[in-house]
């Protein structure tokens, strides 16, 4: 949240800057606009002077005040004689008194929560407006009474100057929108007004004053760091650093004494915190939050009288637990960094909180606290991130620490908190803080200025580059032969490599000023789509041209899908990829065949009243191997060895590309023409035939025995699709049980092909064309009787073999079973054509061909009918 009023504390914001312009200015340097929240309040809301207030006890025990409030000529009532008179207002607030200046919301005003003010009959009077509390105006949580402007942080002169009828909307910032921005994870410093003000300066050149400079100069200089001499002894003792990084490299503690318990938070601070979305709790807590928002240092305030030194910063021990401020109990992990104290001399025995994440219930400041210990520390980003994630506490403090907090502002932060507690809480600050400071000096970056051009394409000279880097807070050295040594500022832990500095220069100079050009890709090796990529398109286009509609589905499946498809869950689950955190708990697996999810698409269409649907989908399926080797965890930034790379891929499941299609309802419906035909297995076989044809693949079908057909398929209407000897899929009709389970009509047809395997069988070589013969054609019809269990494909193959090279075409034109051919037999009739490439076929030739066909087909038990 960015409040222009607050931003103005640190940067010279131009008068009349709108929130829209502010958003644009900040976006330009890389802060993202989330939303401008418009004010939820509309007027009239004005200053009212309470002329009289008459207490009227009510039957329910309440005492209300019947008041007359002067709200100025424009808004005052008019009496019978046409004179302006104060308005009558009923007010139940205990602090209502005559002679006060109050905030009056008049009829027509709208308060947060779409609370509309109207004249209202209540307690026997007509209340012609409302005197408002902080909460009613959305200014804070206080609802103990109404706002008394004489007691609301204004100087006596300011209060004196307020006249009845003066607008309060602007006075109390009620008319102000507020800008919500998104901060990318590398810019921890922008989670503070100090950081945003600096970015506003970077964008607009407006003068920026770093608040830390002044605060730091006023923080006490620590002469003597000997144990026991400061406000409290502090021991940082990390016996379990994460990846060698100490959990806490700075712990700064400073005490305040004689704090006046229950001191109220000043209204301006409460307003700012409320507008930023934080609740006002108590002055010490508000102050620590305020400092965090203002300069970016998360802080903690302890009741000094409850703490027994030394404070020990240490890792948790197995089995320790903590109830955090929000009342939740957490089992601590040995990686959690803790703040502890030492009751009865037992060092680190009492847990005060999870460092940088959330405090515990012991040691907090309370309404009785008079002596306060302020903590301003710097913690390891990783340690805080893990604890925050582990305990699911995304606190404001953790959010900042895990993105990186300035490790040099702890004394300044404490000084700012001290200033506020002294001023508003009557406390006295100690001048003997403890500062355990193990922070490391920043390493400098060797930066060739030419990198700006090499990476960003911006031709800037050394001076321009130096000026930008200096302006963002870097300390520069060198410069001879175009090489700078750059020490980034303490608030920018993200700047570690030359490319980071290139980004800084480019974004501040302006991405819009980078020129534009189109690179020429060198033409080497294969150009254009690969054969497989082309084939994928051919299949997708072919099915659409065939009349099917392409759809997409999510690949998630679960037990209900297996059940509908008569698939044994116990067999399929171990070889399926399982999601740890599925969106739908009942579909945690990835599909092994598209049909399971395509069926859901089909059903959705059917449920929406579409009865005749032919759909297809191209997509991946996922075949887990329970015996696959484990995938190693490897570091980034280093090329793994060949063995490691092989191990990465070896553990991944196979993920072939499949195509599947389903047909239900009518596949032909010519309307008034009258031809209607329901879908059946032939539609699916035709789809497969077309796929084969468009790819130039010779696909054949092999029909297994009924008992060998998988349970999801119709036992008599299913075949394996073969590319030569390689099975590439299945085609047929779904088992009626599957249709019933899904709620689809029987004979719903389907196919599914493994395109990855199918493509791999293609030669991808150009077609070799045969010469076209112009010699005369011979037509013959051949009808065979043959046993039922001999397939059409077998018979056709036999005819082809018998006919040899002269066979030009063969087409089945009749299939018959019935009395005329006898039990267990069927009749298949073919129209065949013969043609020789080099001569006219003679009657003798044809006789010989026919004889060979008869001979060959007889081996199948087929008999040529006369």
């Amino acid at each position, binding site marked *: 949240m960015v409040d222009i009023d607050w931003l103005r504390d640190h940067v010279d914001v131009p008068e009349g800057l709108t929130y829209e312009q502010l958003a644009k200015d900040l976006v330009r340097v890389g802060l993202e606009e989330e939303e401008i929240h418009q004010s939820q309040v509309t007027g009239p809301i004005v200053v009212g002077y309470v002329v009289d207030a008459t207490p009227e006890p009510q039957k329910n025990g309440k005492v209300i005040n019947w008041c007359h409030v002067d709200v100025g000529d424009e808004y005052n009532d008019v009496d019978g004689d046409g004179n302006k008179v104060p308005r009558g207002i009923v007010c139940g607030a205990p602090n209502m008194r005559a002679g006060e200046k109050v905030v009056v919301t008049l009829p027509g005003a709208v308060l947060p929560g779409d609370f509309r003010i109207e004249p209202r009959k209540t307690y026997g009077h007509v209340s012609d407006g409302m005197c408002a509390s902080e909460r009613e105006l959305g200014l804070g949580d206080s609802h103990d009474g109404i706002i008394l402007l004489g007691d609301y942080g204004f100087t006596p002169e300011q209060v004196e100057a307020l006249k009845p009828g003066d607008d309060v909307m602007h006075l109390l910032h009620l008319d102000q929108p507020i800008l919500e921005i998104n901060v990318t994870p590398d810019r921890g410093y922008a989670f503070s007004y100090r950081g945003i003000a600096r970015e506003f300066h970077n964008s607009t050149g407006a003068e920026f004053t770093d608040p830390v400079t002044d605060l730091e100069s006023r923080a006490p200089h620590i002469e003597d760091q000997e144990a026991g001499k400061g406000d409290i002894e502090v021991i940082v003792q990390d016996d379990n650093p994460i990846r060698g990084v100490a959990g806490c490299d700075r712990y700064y503690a400073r005490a305040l004494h004689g704090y006046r318990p229950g001191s109220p938070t000043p209204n301006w601070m409460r307003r700012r915190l409320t507008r930023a979305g934080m609740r006002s709790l108590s002055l010490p807590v508000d102050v620590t939050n305020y400092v965090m928002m203002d300069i970016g240092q998360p802080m903690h305030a302890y009741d000094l009288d409850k703490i027994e030194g030394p404070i020990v910063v240490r890792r948790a021990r197995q089995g320790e637990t903590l109830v955090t401020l929000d009342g939740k109990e957490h089992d601590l992990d040995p990686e959690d960094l803790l703040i502890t104290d030492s009751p009865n001399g037992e060092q680190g025995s009492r847990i005060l909180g999870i460092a940088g994440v959330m405090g515990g219930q012991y040691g907090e400041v309370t309404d009785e606290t008079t002596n306060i210990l302020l903590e301003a520390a710097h913690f390891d980003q990783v340690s805080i991130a893990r604890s925050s994630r582990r305990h699911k506490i995304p606190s404001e403090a953790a959010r900042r620490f895990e993105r990186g907090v300035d490790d040099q502002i702890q004394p300044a932060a404490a000084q700012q908190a001290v200033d506020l507690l002294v001023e508003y809480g009557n406390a006295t600050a100690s001048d003997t803080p403890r500062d355990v400071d193990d922070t490391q000096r920043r390493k400098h970056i060797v930066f060739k200025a030419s990198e700006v051009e090499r990476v*960003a394409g911006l031709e800037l000279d050394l001076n321009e580059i130096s000026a930008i880097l200096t302006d963002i807070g870097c300390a520069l050295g060198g410069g001879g032969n175009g090489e700078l040594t750059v020490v980034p500022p303490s608030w920018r832990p993200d700047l570690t490599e030359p490319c980071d500095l290139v980004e800084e220069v480019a974004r501040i100079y302006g991405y819009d000023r980078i020129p534009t050009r189109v690179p020429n890709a060198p033409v080497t090796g294969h150009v254009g789509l690969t054969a497989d990529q082309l084939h994928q*398109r051919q299949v997708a*286009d072919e099915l659409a041209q065939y009349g099917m509609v392409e759809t997409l589905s*999510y690949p998630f499946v679960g037990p209900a899908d297996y059940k509908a498809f008569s698939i044994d869950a116990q067999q399929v689950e171990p070889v399926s990829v399982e999601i*740890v955190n599925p969106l739908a708990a009942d579909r945690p697996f990835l599909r092994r065949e598209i049909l399971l999810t395509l069926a859901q698409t089909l059903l959705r269409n059917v449920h929406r009243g579409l009865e005749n649907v032919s759909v297809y989908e191209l997509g991946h399926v996922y075949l887990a191997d329970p015996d696959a080797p*484990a995938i190693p965890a490897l570091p*980034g*930034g280093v090329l793994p060895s060949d063995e490691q790379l092989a191990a990465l891929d070896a553990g991944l499941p196979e993920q072939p590309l499949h195509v599947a299609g389903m047909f239900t309802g009518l596949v032909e419906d010519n309307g*008034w023409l009258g031809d209607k035909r329901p879908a059946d297995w032939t539609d699916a076989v035709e789809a497969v035939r077309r796929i084969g044809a468009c790819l130039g693949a010779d696909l054949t079908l092999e029909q297994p025995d009924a008992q060998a057909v998988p349970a999801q398929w119709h036992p008599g209407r299913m075949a394996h699709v073969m590319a030569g000897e390689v099975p590439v899929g299945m085609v047929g009709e779904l088992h009626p049980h599957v249709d019933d389970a899904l709620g689809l009509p029987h004979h719903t047809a389907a196919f599914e092909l493994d395109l990855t395997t199918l493509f791999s069988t293609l030669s991808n070589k150009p077609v070799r064309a045969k010469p076209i013969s112009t010699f005369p054609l011979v037509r013959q019809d051949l009808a065979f009787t043959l046993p039922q269990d001999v397939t059409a494909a077998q018979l056709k193959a036999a005819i082809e073999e018998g006919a040899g090279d002269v066979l030009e075409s063969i087409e089945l034109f009749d299939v018959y079973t019935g009395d005329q051919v006898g039990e267990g037999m069927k009749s298949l009739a073919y129209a065949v054509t013969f043609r020789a490439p080099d001569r006219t076929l003679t009657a003798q030739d044809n006789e010989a061909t026919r004889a060979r066909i008869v001979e060959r087909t007889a081996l199948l038990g087929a008999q040529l009918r006369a």
Partner: protein
Amino acid sequence: MAEGTQFDAEAVAESVAEGIAAIEQASSMEELKAIKTRYAGAQSAMTLASKAIGSLDKDSKKEAGKLMGKLRADFGRAYGTKEAEVKAAEEAAELAAETVDMTLPVARKPLGARHPLPKLMEDVQDFFVGMGWQISDGPEVETEWFDFDALNFGPDHPARQMQDTFYVKGNQAKDAAGFVGSNMVLRTQTSSDQVRGLIAHGVPLYIACPGRVFRTDELDATHTPVFHQVEALAVDKGLTMADLKGVLDKLAVAMFGPEAKSRLRPSYFPFTEPSAELDLWFPDKKGGPGWIEWGGCGMVNPNVLRSAGIEPDVYTGFAFGVGVERTLLLRHDINDMHDLVEGDVRFSEQFVMGE
């Protein structure tokens, strides 16, 4: 006139004239044929007269022959003319009888349809192929190394939290974040193909990787847990952000028309530095032309190049990714993501044949 009758010039001329008159009155082929039989058939006056010529003397023969020739020709001409007329009329009547209402709805074969999403992916592929780039694709169930570590997301990188990832079950020991993992995820971005491409092909490399990605967002009007991206990566000597901007402008025009252009805003991604948000100037934006967020981009982070064993001091590269769903929603004025992902055939059918 019967067989063996005398040649009678007058009578035959009269008969032919009568025949010609009858022809002119005829209105069907049937009538015409009957007239022909009657006046030119075997028993007709004309035929008998011709036969009778033989019994005439030499001089009369010549004259009679002449007369008969003329009569035959006159009859034949009249007949031919009328025959053509009648045939044409009969054909016209026949065709008139076959007339249909050509506006009757005809749907002999159902129209199929491609889904616009894979279609758009193909358009984008063609854009890159046209520039001489290659198209690659990587696995959807991906190792954490390719999806995160190689792209400069360390195990504790806050950006790993930014993207809500589907993790895949496995049997491995506890990892850094206290998570029992397989080191496998459903890839959260097609950027996972960057390092695969670099390792597989080396440099110089110009590739685009279109594909399916996954994040744990519930389906709503603007989000879907399963969506598509196109990632582009170029690594070569001498590439700068200027090249990135050039390619983005071209892509914007290819996808959104000649007035479209791109804009970069500073941002952050672990795998690029400098990084930028990619905005698109969209002339047909609802409520008037304006900028809309389209994707992310930047110069490839040196750590990513190092992950692929490429020397960042010698090579530079740029990368960008755009959301395919987002492109579709914008370009086709689709208001609800549900329409794009649910597979309702009525949705795809709007895009039949082109566009």
